[in-house]
């Protein structure tokens, strides 16, 4: 997750206005789902991969690994469509222990179509996740007039995920050096301890954060400047 986050703000088009990227991936998603043709799905997949790798400059290794991981989950999912398994004796199927397994061209074709459709959609989402910082998505929501409170909470949540991530790593390490995860019993104990401490830590941190905000003359509304973006048909500044 940290790596996806890191690509999101360091890729070549990270400063492009998020509306373009959200628009492109939503368009791809909708096309993929409504056209429902394997060829169209394949084209969209190729296009999205191309945009991510060549336009945004994200490492092809990382993009493909990510897609492969997601793809293997999808594959497992569509396997049930391609083949049907039953305990009843089946004339057209093959016996596999107590089960009868059967498959035919139509269901394989259906499964393939489904798989490509899902993979195309996933690649569109990957494009968005890898090229657009979460902050920009939040900013976009703000500009779309989503209530300010929600936007602030989303921003703070995003900030706190990483703060608590660090705490979690520290606490896990502290337990490990004291042989906390040695066996099943002590693992459970350690996990419970970490859970409690993490909660207390989050609470403590939010108190300090509030104090720190007060010291900067905060009065309840988190006023910040909007982020600045590039537009594609305009000179970069």
């Amino acid at each position, binding site marked *: 997750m940290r790596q996806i986050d890191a690509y999101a703000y360091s890729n070549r088009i990270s400063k492009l206005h998020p509306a373009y990227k959200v628009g492109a991936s939503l368009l791809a998603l909708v096309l993929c789902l409504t056209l429902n043709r394997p060829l169209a799905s394949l084209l969209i997949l190729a296009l999205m991969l191309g945009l991510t790798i060549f336009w945004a400059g994200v490492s092809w290794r990382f993009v493909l690994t990510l897609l492969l991981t997601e793809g293997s989950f999808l594959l497992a999912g569509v396997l049930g469509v391609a083949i049907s398994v039953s305990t009843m004796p089946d004339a057209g199927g093959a016996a596999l222990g107590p089960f009868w397994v059967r498959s035919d061209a139509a269901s394989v074709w259906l499964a393939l179509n489904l798989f490509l459709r899902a993979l195309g959609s996933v690649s569109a989402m990957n494009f968005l996740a890898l090229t657009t910082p979460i902050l920009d998505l939040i900013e976009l929501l703000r500009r779309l007039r989503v209530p300010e409170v929600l936007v602030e909470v989303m921003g703070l949540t995003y900030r706190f995920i990483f703060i608590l991530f*660090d705490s979690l790593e520290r606490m896990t390490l502290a337990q490990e050096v004291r042989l906390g995860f040695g066996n099943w019993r002590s693992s459970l104990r350690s996990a419970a301890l970490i859970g409690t401490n993490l909660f207390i830590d989050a609470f403590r*941190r939010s108190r300090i954060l509030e104090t720190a905000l007060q010291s900067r003359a905060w009065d309840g509304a988190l006023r910040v400047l909007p982020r600045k973006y590039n537009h594609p048909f305009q000179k970069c500044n």
Partner: protein
Amino acid sequence: MQLTFIDVHVRYPGLDISALNGVNLEINTGERVALVGRNGSGKSTLMLTANGILRPHQGALLLDGRPVRYDRSGLRELRRNVGVVFQNPDDQLFSASVYQDISLGPLNLGLTQAEAHRRVQEVAEFCGLQELLDRPTHALSGGEKTRAALAGVLAMSPRFLFADEVTNSLDPWMRPQVLEILDRLADSGCAVILATHDWALASAWAQRVIWLEGGSVFRQGKPGASSWLT
């Protein structure tokens, strides 16, 4: 400008004993002050009091001879002039973006967006953060976080800057850089008050060392001067 503590007593809510016990102190703009003292002697409490987060239950805090008012506008006036950088920058950086985090203070002071933007650019340059403005705060190194937290306070152009052990977690390369920022700040006429456990740093860097003990000023003076020993 002058910030004065007169017999200031401060107590944390729910605690009987005072964390500050009759502090008498005078700080002038342009001064470089080191605040030393053992753990729990009241350094952090003093800083929070200077900024109006904690309110004395006895004694008074004066800004340019006038007692600080603890209402909305009074506190805003105090915080415009007195800034605090916290010990752990992660406690202070609330926004996921450096640029947005720095912009909080100026906007809170009622500056327009254009003015706030200019302020952010200025302090970013002052603290060497120009390249990092678009970075998420969690993707900064420790030294960069410290500078970002510092910039967030400097953007309010305070006349008194209290920095709580900001040099502690820094490596020997980053430390001089942050100290250099503090030096330039003092040269520009801001008072810099640095809490530290590093006596060598305190006597080398500061014009005046204030030694807190048990919540009050135990000793103060120019480091190395004979009056310091008595």
